[in-house]
């Protein structure tokens, strides 16, 4: 394994790991604010129990999110020093803005988790609101840096000298807005369906309490709204990618040839050698319509791009299909649930097939999130900064990258399994009063 592969694997591992916890940091506070708010309004104790339980889960998840985020702050520079020299100079300050938001989130997390007995109920709830807002804001801001990597602007580069003309150029681009909305919604979706799935399992095991019932209703209300918004935002984002990143768009749909009436391809095996995609289900004109609202429009294929600038087509196309497939499943199950709920809430919440479907949807939101991240990042390859810097030119010349990768792989494995085990245990504990701090 050479340094480049090791560095890429370590970066991928660090991001894939952090993303789960970061998504929870963005999504779970919203659910917390809702159930705690319902408790304050109605005084029903099961809402309070849910808030306590979810707050405890937040305690672990946020801490692991904070440390894995720190890892990224280090590793961007440690693994990709040349990348960081340019990125820092042009958009480093966006990380600064994110830093303020994250700082606020970390402060209010402390107040929220340890402040149940020290703050007035409404003040405690407001701390939750502050976490939810700053969590979203920090995610939205950091996506600004990623958007800049896809669409680098606001600077000139001559003989290695960087001049910055507009430090906030990326915020004036629709790319950032589309990506920020899409990624924020994906966090809400991932968390909402994971929560709904977990409590659907409890109901399948015979727990018919108000506690599990409210958890599912709240989670699927958030999940149901956000999944529909997500379809819209995905459509806008795809159109924008079509206009700005030809290679990524073509790879997403395994479109090798430039053609009119380009089809949407579902599944299939893209073959970069023969420049064909076999065994795919094709919807003629679908892709042209998706990209431009005109089924006859011409879609440029990968053949317009020099071969050495191609992203890995099979991975990008496969990830795209996984993302869209998971999203579609979530949307259908939400529809099913809310139609059934509208026709009779008790029946909906005890229907075994429906509960099974919700339970099976539990991991799909996170799978879609990871797959979507793979689409956007692998689709940018071989560039680390689109058409400005290639990944292999950014990697550190330091030795020992392999050893560090293995060390951190073990660390992530340890952190991942331990958090999962502790959360699993937490799940089976009866709802108890939160008292001072998480399990202190």
């Amino acid at each position, binding site marked *: 394994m050479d340094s480049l592969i090791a560095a890429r694997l370590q970066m991928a591992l660090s991001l894939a790991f952090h993303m789960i916890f970061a998504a929870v940091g963005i999504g779970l506070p919203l659910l917390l604010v809702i159930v705690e708010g319902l408790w304050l309004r109605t005084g029903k104790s099961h809402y309070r129990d849910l808030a306590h339980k979810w707050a405890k889960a937040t305690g672990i998840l946020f801490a692991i999110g904070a440390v894995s985020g720190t890892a990224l702050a280090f*590793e961007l*520079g440690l693994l990709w020093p040349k990348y960081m020299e340019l*990125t820092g100079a042009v958009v480093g300050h966006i990380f*600064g803005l994110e830093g303020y938001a994250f700082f606020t989130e970390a402060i209010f997390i402390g107040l929220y988790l340890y402040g149940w007995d020290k703050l007035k109920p409404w003040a405690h709830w407001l701390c939750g609101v502050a976490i939810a807002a700053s969590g979203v804001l920090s995610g939205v801001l950091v996506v600004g840096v990623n958007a800049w990597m896809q669409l680098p602007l606001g600077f000139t580069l001559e003989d290695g000298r960087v001049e910055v003309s507009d430090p906030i150029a990326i915020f004036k681009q629709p790319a950032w807005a589309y990506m920020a909305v899409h990624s924020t919604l994906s966090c809400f979706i991932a968390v909402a369906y994971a929560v709904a799935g977990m409590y659907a399992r409890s109901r399948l095991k015979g727990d018919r309490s108000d506690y599990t019932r409210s958890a599912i209703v709240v989670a699927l209300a958030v999940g149901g709204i956000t999944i529909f918004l997500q379809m819209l935002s995905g459509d806008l984002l795809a159109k924008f990618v079509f206009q700005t990143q030809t290679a990524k768009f073509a790879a997403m749909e395994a479109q090798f040839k430039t053609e009119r009436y380009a089809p949407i391809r579902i599944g299939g095996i893209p073959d970069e050698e023969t420049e064909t995609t076999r065994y795919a289900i094709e919807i003629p004109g679908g892709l042209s319509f998706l990209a431009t609202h005109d089924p006859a429009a011409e879609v440029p294929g990968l053949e317009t791009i020099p071969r050495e600038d191609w992203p890995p087509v099979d991975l990008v196309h496969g990830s795209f299909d996984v993302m869209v497939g998971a999203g579609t499943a979530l949307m259908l199950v939400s529809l099913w649930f809310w139609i059934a709920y509208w026709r009779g809430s008790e029946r909906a919440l005890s229907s075994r097939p429906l509960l099974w479907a919700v339970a099976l949807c539990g991991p799909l939101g996170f799978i879609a999130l990871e797959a979507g991240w793979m689409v956007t990042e692998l689709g940018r390859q071989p560039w680390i900064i689109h058409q400005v810097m290639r990944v292999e030119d950014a990697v550190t010349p330091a030795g*020992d990258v392999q050893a560090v990768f293995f060390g951190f792989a073990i660390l992530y494995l340890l952190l991942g399994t331990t958090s999962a085990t502790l959360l699993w245990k937490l799940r089976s504990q009866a709802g108890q009063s939160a008292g001072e701090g998480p399990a202190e």
Partner: protein
Amino acid sequence: MSDELLVHLAGGTALVALMAYALFGGADFGGGVWDLFATGPRKQLQRDVIAHAMGPVWEANHVWLILLLVVLFTCFPNGYGPLAIALFIPFHLALFGIMLRGASFVFRNYSRKSKLTDAAAPLARLWGTVFGVASLISPLLLGVAFGVLTQGEIRVSDTGQVHHEKPLPWLSFYAIGCGMLALSTCAYLAAVYLTYETSGELREDFRRRAILAGTTTAVLAGGVFAATYFEARWFFGQLTSPRCLPVLLVGLFFFAASAWAVYGRRYWLSRVFAAGEIVVLLLGWGIAQLPYLIYPDMTLMDAAAPRATIAFLLTTLPFGAAIVGPSLWLLMKVFKGEREEVGGRR
């Protein structure tokens, strides 16, 4: 505003973030040290009070490090890259410690089943040990990195190639001494803070620890200063220069004053002096470091980002502070405002 002033303001901002990280994050690492070395009849009580003090604030304290990194790579990107290459191993080890420290702290909390019983459950105990050991790693390695930097071991060519003067420069007596000094200072700071947050016999426990760590710190500081003369001659010259020496002496006076206050059981004073010591000594380092970011090849000006970037970040600082400042004040007021008599109860 001239470019030079702007760049130095950015350097000052990085230094302030480092001071805050040392004051708050450093004390949390020190807390981990005393958790690891908790002894005597009040062993469990010592650990409880450390966990109690850290619990609500460690994540916020930790963000100072992230801000420091952000200011460095935003305002000094051309220096950040070479530092990341030259200090690849020590920074990764420090990061390893930082991650494991934070994770094991929550893992231990959640491995305990309830408030009072089962605190000694084997898994909780294991995570407690990991927490303590991990707390040693990061201050040690960050101190070593400081040593390598001030030793002039990191060379950057005109084309941006990075190399060390010697192989494995972090294994020098001076660099390791800097690491030990950083660790011992964190331990001292934590012990001094904890005397203020406890009472009764538990407070006496931490007072003894403060005296121990203070003595160690003084001895190490003497040793490192001597080593500076032999192994980091440029830095020695900077430290003893007329613009730096007075600051250094004020820092040493603060250190002595805080030691005197601990000895005389004036805990509030000792806390103020200890914090002052850290701030003033780091200020002294900042002055000594000028005009270099990486001696001898890269000045702050060489490393600086384009003007627009630095100006933007500095402009946002007051707004960031306006949000973070009051929030931080609230956090401290709620959890540190009233002195709880933790050690008094049995």
